[in-house]
């Protein structure tokens, strides 16, 4: 009787997450896959085939954009880590109490407005008639207006800015759990700053680094707004390509195939990253 009751309770508690997974994740992906293996042969006539996937590999534009997106996302992730680590270390180890909370909060404040507004903010700063260009002219450092928008560097700035919080939070959590006495012991034993960072801090923070990197990489790879708004005429991004196929070309079949390939690519990169850093997904997510 009791066990029946608790079983029921268990399933009731499990129901929301199962529903979530089935209805919002598994079913749409099955639908997406079915659409991606349909080919249009005439108006309202479709047949099954792998033509859309073949198109992807035959048309250099698609896989080049694909590779470009992946490489730029990895670069954005690395940059975010390099910028985020000192911030996280400072917050976790060198501040206490109120200062710590304040600094943490300051990292979060930009995320109180939507991504669109933040991106427009960058556009106002970077454009030819924008704040930075005008400031440089006023200071006499440049002669004419400078265009800093519509290139890959602008995309990079936008991506790093958008995702840095997702790097800082897991890093602060893992660094917080590192006992200060371990660092002190390192110094007592004559270790240099660099050696302590390499031998003590980074190994301890590894789960945080990896989980931060996974999140940032996924966010960058799947970002649509930032590359479209800040990028220029040559700055293609894979999500923009999927949007074009779905909306302006009415080609849902190819769009679905591209979407599926994006899913596979991101999973492959994450898998590779875990292997290279010798972390397991379970451990990373559990500890961070």
């Amino acid at each position, binding site marked *: 009787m009791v066990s029946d009751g608790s079983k029921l309770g268990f399933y009731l508690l499990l129901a929301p997450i199962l529903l979530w997974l089935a209805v919002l994740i598994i079913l749409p992906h099955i639908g997406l896959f079915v659409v991606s293996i349909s080919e249009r042969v005439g108006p309202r006539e479709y047949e099954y085939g792998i033509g859309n996937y073949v198109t992807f590999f035959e048309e250099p534009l698609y896989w080049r954009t694909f590779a470009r997106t992946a490489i730029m996302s990895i670069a954005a992730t690395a940059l975010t880590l390099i910028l985020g680590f000192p911030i996280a270390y400072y917050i976790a180890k060198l501040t206490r109490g109120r200062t710590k909370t304040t600094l943490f909060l300051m990292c979060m404040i930009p995320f109180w407005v939507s991504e669109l507004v933040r991106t427009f903010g960058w556009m106002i700063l970077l454009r030819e008639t924008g704040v930075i260009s005008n400031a440089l002219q006023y200071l006499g450092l440049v002669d004419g207006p400078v265009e800093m928008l519509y290139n890959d560097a602008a995309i990079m700035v936008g991506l790093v800015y958008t995702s840095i919080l997702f790097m800082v939070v897991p890093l602060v959590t893992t660094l917080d759990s590192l006992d200060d006495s371990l660092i002190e012991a390192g110094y007592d034993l004559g270790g240099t700053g660099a050696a302590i960072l390499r031998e003590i801090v980074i190994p301890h923070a590894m789960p945080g680094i990896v989980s931060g990197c996974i999140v940032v990489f996924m966010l960058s790879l799947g970002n649509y707004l930032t590359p479209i708004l800040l990028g220029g005429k040559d700055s293609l991004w894979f999500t923009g390509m999927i949007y074009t196929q779905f*909306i302006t*070309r009415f080609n849902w079949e190819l769009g679905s195939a591209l979407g599926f390939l994006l899913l596979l690519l991101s999973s492959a990169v994450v898998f590779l990253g875990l292997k290279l850093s010798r972390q397991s997904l379970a451990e990373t997510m559990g500890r961070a």
Partner: protein
Amino acid sequence: MKTKLLSSVVMIAALGAQSAQAETLHLLTWGGYAPEEVIAMFEEETGHTVEVTTSNNEEMIAKLRATNGGGFDLAQPSQDRITSAQEEFGIYKPIDMSMVNADLFIPSMLEATAGNTTYEGEVYGLPHIWGTSGLVINTAEAEGVTDYTDLCNEEVAGKVSYRLKRPTLIGFAYAMGLDPFAAYGDEAAYQEILDQVEAKLTECKPNVKTYWDGGDEIQNLLRSGEVVASMAWDTGGWQLNADNPDITFVAPDSGALGWIDTFVLPARGRADAAAYDWINFVMRPDIAAMITNSAGNFTASVGGDEGVSADLKARYQASFDQAAIDNIKWYPPVPAGLEALEGATLDRVNAAN
């Protein structure tokens, strides 16, 4: 038992009557086509409520395709994009002309739109608002730009913007002396035209500052002076002209490209009565003038131009003399499948270095 049945029948009938009188109209349209004050007047007069979603041609079709023509009761795509979408996805239902007050429409436009939106013997579209795309130029700095291909000139290098969409392909083709509309029916001939345009657009790419996407984006670029010559809609040019007299819309030598936005009924729309009420309401000359003043483009309403502000009329006349009006190239219906060819061309231009 009998009285109970009777009362429930009465109740259902009453509910039915009520919903026939006051419905919610889900309108899928362009920005500016349904101004607040027009909606308020319509709601007051008919008791219907209106919910507006603003969009563009491609998104309208994509949205309706996703629901097989449901979720909206009235949509406003351009007339050249209706038959192909109907053939491909079956997202519209035919217009019931007995519900429409045809006297409100300019007869020639009503007829032309009916001809262009007929699919399997049924008419799917009514004309609403027409306008053109051409060149929006800062005349003080880019005087030499009089046709689409002039956007590739040396003196405007780095200060040019256009969209990477089908109107750009068509406009450039005309400026290069080709006739893309005549080749609509012949895929091989059309592909040949596209190849020539692709070469031109690729060559022109270093001149382009950025490809614009939304109307606000190009207005911003022109207003700030970062762009001095662009291919854009006439209304955008006239709006900028109000702030800066140097900037205006110029009908290109090879002809502005004319479009007509229509009324169509989505296949699974549920408030047809309200949709027809809306059509008959906004085509009244006084209301049509209000919409022209808001959207900046003229309507297919008889007498609808009388109440239009003098400023807008003056700008329109400055951009279009009679010869320019006669030279407008009106979009014929796009055959299904042609957009795939255009898409591949646009992708290649986008990827070219």
